[in-house]
């Protein structure tokens, strides 16, 4: 399938007529016509036997298809597209291995509540269940990692299933939906009536509860709190509650701690922003949570990576939980007030009850605890000739003005990015938080670039994770898109090595990693690049990547056995941190701001 097969304008308008006038179409045409009707412009996929009828009809529709190199990439691209745009991302694959290759990407979207719709072909309904060639029970396989899925075996059921899939994917707590379409459903015909296929009105979860009593109680707790902290998560950006969260923080002078997926939902430069909480959050942030007398959890789920052991988590604090998913209430941490509903709506109801309050004493306490930790910060270390990943993150942030969309992979570099790249706006950090999927960054960045073609997009990946999906470099070239790639290359599976150093007596089993020369690898794809070995070269290299016409790869050869600090060992209490080691005298680099 060629990738530049955008149909002519006249073709497109002919097709759009189907959206208003019921017309007999093949299942394949119904598939694309419904996607057009749902506003889809780009899909990420890989053809194969059971989905070929759909591909055959694609050229008649104004949808751009991106050919991936592995279906996992297609799911991550749809995911990255959704995270960057807030719209539903769409990927498509054939039956059998095509479908199973999507699974990691689907689970990634599930754990982070990302709305994607995955289309798979399947064998004809006549042979379903016979172990036909490339047949797999993908609705069975993806059942626990999708919000819902459909098996469609008749052309007449297709439009309805697809439209419902879009509704389910983006309503309530968003998530992935898979629509498996048999080959005969693609080949059969039916009357396509887009309006008639409109799903029943969205049915909110019946256990949503925002009652006056709860709002009053929450307001009372806020009024009386001496040491309150707002915990802001992914739900802030998903619900579009940035403004409301900020108003709450500013009016009541409450400091804000963010989850990894919450980064960007509250401006990093805001004086009330403490930064990231949890396993690799700064010490003062976690101390503030442990010392707090009130936690206001907004669109977050008390994941084990932010609580440490729940037995000792924020024992002094009353807890208000504002959350759209009733199944999250009291799941990990028992809360005192649960306001179960859309975060923005709940905050809008809560804000009129919250009066201004003086938070200066508590803020002063928190601020005074920062100083000691900051001087140990790697970014304040003098140039010793070594290149630290923290330097790279800090310089990337400084040089891009923090305006780029950064897509990180999983591991040490992901945490360093979260610590040293300061995000001012939502949807500027795209990362796999819940599932922690290595190989996510490169394909997700491609998806993000299609969602926001005018934005500067950076991939930051480790040498390990990058190799998991490096084949998508070809996709970048075939699509002629501009993405900048920063590989944080330390010759190890760094985060695992760090755990081995801390918890397994430095037994570096299976973590030293031989990699290809990434610059040559890029070159083989027709992508320019260079290696960077000293801090002095970072700025120039970053500028070179930014000003290059096409995609550009930077291979940062960083300190090999550096670790991410601070760190709370898994299962330990939030205040039991492994702190940054003391290092040699500190001179602030003139580049540092």
């Amino acid at each position: 399938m060629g990738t530049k097969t955008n149909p002519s304008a006249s073709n497109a308008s002919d097709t759009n007529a189907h959206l208003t006038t019921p017309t007999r179409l093949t299942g394949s045409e119904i598939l694309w016509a419904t996607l057009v009707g749902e506003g889809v412009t780009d899909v990420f996929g890989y053809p194969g036997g059971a989905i070929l009828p759909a591909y055959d009809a694609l050229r008649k529709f104004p949808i751009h298809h991106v050919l991936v190199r592995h279906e996992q990439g297609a799911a991550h691209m749809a995911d990255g597209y959704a995270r960057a745009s807030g719209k539903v991302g769409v990927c498509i694959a054939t039956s059998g291995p095509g479908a199973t290759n999507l699974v990691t990407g689907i689970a990634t979207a599930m754990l982070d509540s990302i709305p994607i719709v995955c289309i798979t072909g399947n064998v004809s309904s006549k042979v379903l269940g016979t172990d036909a060639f490339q047949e797999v029970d993908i609705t069975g396989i993806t059942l626990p990692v999708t919000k819902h899925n459909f098996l469609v075996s008749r052309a007449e059921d297709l439009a309805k299933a697809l439209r419902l899939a879009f509704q389910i994917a983006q309503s309530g707590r968003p998530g992935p939906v898979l629509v498996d379409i048999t080959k005969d459903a693609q080949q059969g015909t039916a009357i396509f009536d887009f309006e008639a296929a409109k799903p029943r009105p969205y049915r909110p979860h019946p256990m949503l509860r925002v009652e006056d009593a709860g709002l009053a109680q929450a307001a009372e707790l806020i009024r009386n709190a001496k040491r309150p902290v707002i915990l802001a998560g992914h739900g802030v950006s998903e619900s579009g509650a940035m403004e409301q969260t900020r108003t709450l923080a500013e009016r009541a002078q409450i400091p804000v701690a963010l989850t990894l997926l919450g980064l960007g939902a509250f401006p990093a430069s805001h004086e009330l922003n403490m930064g990231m909480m949890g396993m690799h959050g700064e010490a003062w942030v976690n101390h503030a949570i442990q010392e707090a007398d009130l936690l206001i959890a907004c669109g977050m789920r008390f994941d084990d990576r932010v609580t440490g052991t729940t037995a000792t988590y924020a024992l002094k604090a009353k807890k208000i939980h504002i959350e759209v998913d009733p199944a999250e209430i009291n799941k990990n941490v028992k809360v005192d007030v649960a306001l179960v509903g859309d975060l923005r709506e709940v905050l809008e109801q809560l804000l009129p009850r919250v009066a201004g309050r003086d938070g200066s004493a508590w803020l002063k306490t928190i601020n005074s605890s920062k100083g000691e930790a900051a001087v140990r910060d790697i970014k304040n270390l003098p140039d010793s000739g070594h290149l630290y990943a923290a330097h790279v993150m800090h310089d990337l942030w400084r040089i891009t003005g923090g305006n780029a969309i950064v897509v990180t992979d999983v591991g040490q570099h992901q945490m360093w990015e979260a610590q040293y790249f300061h995000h001012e706006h939502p949807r500027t950090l795209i990362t796999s938080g819940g599932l922690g999927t290595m190989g996510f960054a490169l394909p997700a960045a491609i998806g993000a670039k299609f969602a926001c073609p005018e934005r500067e997009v950076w991939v930051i990946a480790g040498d390990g994770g990058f190799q998991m999906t490096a084949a998508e470099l070809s996709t970048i070239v075939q699509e002629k898109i501009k993405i900048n790639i920063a590989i944080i290359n330390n010759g190890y599976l760094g985060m695992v090595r760090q755990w081995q150093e801390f918890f397994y007596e430095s037994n570096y089993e299976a973590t030293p990693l031989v990699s290809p020369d990434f610059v040559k690898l890029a070159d083989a794809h027709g992508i320019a690049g260079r290696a960077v070995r000293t801090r002095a070269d970072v700025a120039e290299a970053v500028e070179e990547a930014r000003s290059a016409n096409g995609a550009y790869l930077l291979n940062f050869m960083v300190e090999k056995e550096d670790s991410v600090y601070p760190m709370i060992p898994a299962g330990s209490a939030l205040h039991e941190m492994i702190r940054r080691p003391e290092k040699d005298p500190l001179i602030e680099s003139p580049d540092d701001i």
Partner: protein
Amino acid sequence: MLHTFVAYVEDLPGVLTRVASLFRRLNININSLTVGRSERAGLSRLTLVCEASSEAGHRIRASLYKLENVVDVDDIAQAPSVTRELALIKVAASPTDRSQIFDLVEVYRARIVDLTSESLVIEMTGVESKIEGLIEVLREDEGRILEICRSGKMTMRRGHHTSGVLQALGAGDSEEAEEVAEDKAAVEPE
């Protein structure tokens, strides 16, 4: 503790798998599960009994509701309710010792629903303990019981309302209930 959930689910292929899969994912064993048609067209009613911590009820109910095909969920908990189970028990009985079984069946208010020269089938409806009682007595004769088939529990709240969920929503019938649910929140997605 033992939790009992009553749920109305869409009568479609795979819905039972979705329900069962949820409990598997939560690592909760299902003690008993009965499913059948209900008074509502296109909806099956199921009674599910499982052992889980006392706080688990809320999360299980909330998670059941997250399944697209689940329409109503009632956590019976300690609410006044009627629970029944059906058992079919085939026992060995020759013409000479039948009368002994007949007596037992009468005491337990069960019924004989099949009789041959070597065996008979007892049908019994009741609470679990009563069925257990009959089985225990029959077991006193070794080799007496040939087969046991039990339906699992079926539960219905006592009193005048069609299901506890509707009551919880503060509405009398399903249409009103849906309206209440829609008022409760939410947004039409874009």
